[in-house]
């Protein structure tokens, strides 16, 4: 049976669908976090070099990956909204931005707290951390531009264009920062990769999945309130049970 995707692209029907999907993402996220952290803290052995401090990677690496991934997904939705004029995808992009920004912040914070015992300094101008910081600026740019335009339609389309330009620049920024970093400091030691114990990799993969489920759940919740806000004049909103209760 062919699912009529266009039926769900209308905000009103998507509102109901999103409502049903949220528990399917929220609950697995909590479960996966519990499992992942359990393995990370109790199963994974102590690292020979870094002792217990390395356990921070179970949140630092997923957060960094998520912050980058969510930015690209956001730019994708924004492009869809701009090209096909579908309001729902622009709303999805706006819903993803704060969660992406939060993951970028977490990645920076845990990176700094990990850097202190490892390199002895709170902030190290490492290529990855620096590009993470710039990514956070790109998120703030997106959110600030969207918030400062009153007309929702123009806000979506202007922020979408910025997200697309931003996503083109992310690789350029990353490589220029990497080039800049190796020029001044020499290459930093590599600690992720094959040398990790299998339990470590498992834990990190599970927490990554947990973060992904969490991001989808948050985006769905936020997109529902955006839909309500945008469609408040329409009839279907006033008939909703939440509105009448």
């Amino acid at each position: 049976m062919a699912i009529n995707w266009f039926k769900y692209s209308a905000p009103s029907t998507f509102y109901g669908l999103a409502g049903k999907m949220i528990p399917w993402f929220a609950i697995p996220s909590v479960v996966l976090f519990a499992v992942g952290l359990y393995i990370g803290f109790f199963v994974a052995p102590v690292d020979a070099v870094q002792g217990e401090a390395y356990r921070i990677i179970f949140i630092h690496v997923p957060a960094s990956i998520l912050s980058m991934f969510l930015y690209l997904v956001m730019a994708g939705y924004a492009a869809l909204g701009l090209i096909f004029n579908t309001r729902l995808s622009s709303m999805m992009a706006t819903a993803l931005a704060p969660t992406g920004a939060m993951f970028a912040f977490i990645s920076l914070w845990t990176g700094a707290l990990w850097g202190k015992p490892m390199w002895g300094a709170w902030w190290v101008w490492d290529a990855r951390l620096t590009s993470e910081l710039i990514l956070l600026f790109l998120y703030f740019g997106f959110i600030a531009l969207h918030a400062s335009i009153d007309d929702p339609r123009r806000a979506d389309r202007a922020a979408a264009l910025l997200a697309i330009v931003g996503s083109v620049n992310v690789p350029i920024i990353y490589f220029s920062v990497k080039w800049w970093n190796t020029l001044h400091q020499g290459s930093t030691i590599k600690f992720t990769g094959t040398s990790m114990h299998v339990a470590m990799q498992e834990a990190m993969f599970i927490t990554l999945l947990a973060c992904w489920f969490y991001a989808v759940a948050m985006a769905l919740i936020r997109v529902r309130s955006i839909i309500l806000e945008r469609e408040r004049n329409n009839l279907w909103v006033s008939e909703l049970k939440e509105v009448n209760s």
Partner: protein
Amino acid sequence: MNQLSIFKLLNLVIRRDLLLAMRRRADVLTILVFFVLVVSLFPLGVGPEMDMLRKMAAGVLWVAALLASMLSLGRLFSADYLDGTLEQMMLAPQSLSVLVLGKMIAHWFVSGLPLVLMAPVLGLQFDMSVPALLVLMLSLLLGTPILSMLGAIGAALTLGLRGGGVLLSLLVLPLCIPVLIFGSGAVEAVTSGLSVVSNLSLIGALFVLCLVFTPWVTAQALRISME
């Protein structure tokens, strides 16, 4: 047909904007004075030791150039937006991207070129060697147009918004980081005797990339903002 050739249109738009800029000569000077002011602040803050200043000269000059061009971008479209001429330009039977390119070039003449000419003078304040000054000028000559082009996108997106100036810088500065890195990297390369070709060619690559894409993107941004 009323469609002007690219060069005639560019010529018309650049002459118009430069004519306007000359009627308001003060604006051109404020950008230059701001550049000189920001650069002169650093020795006051950091201290007069020459070897320290020489090391940070490139970075300081480049960051000041970045801020100075951000300062003047706010007026790129907003003056025309307020008095309705921008509307007429969008309704003109010409290609909007070429028209926007003309405005970018005019903006560069007003804000980029003066910085390039002033930079060596300020470089002496930081006791930079002659080859370093030459490379600084060259990197600024290639880099400041990129700042104008990327800035035009920000100016078009934040058209008519309150607090547009600060928002514009928030949007555009992250995008200018590669230029800043390669620009100041070029000067450092020459002071430490390395070859400058790699840095300048990377800035050249960014310049061409921007030259191809930013006019079209800015035209789209204008259409979005003018709705």
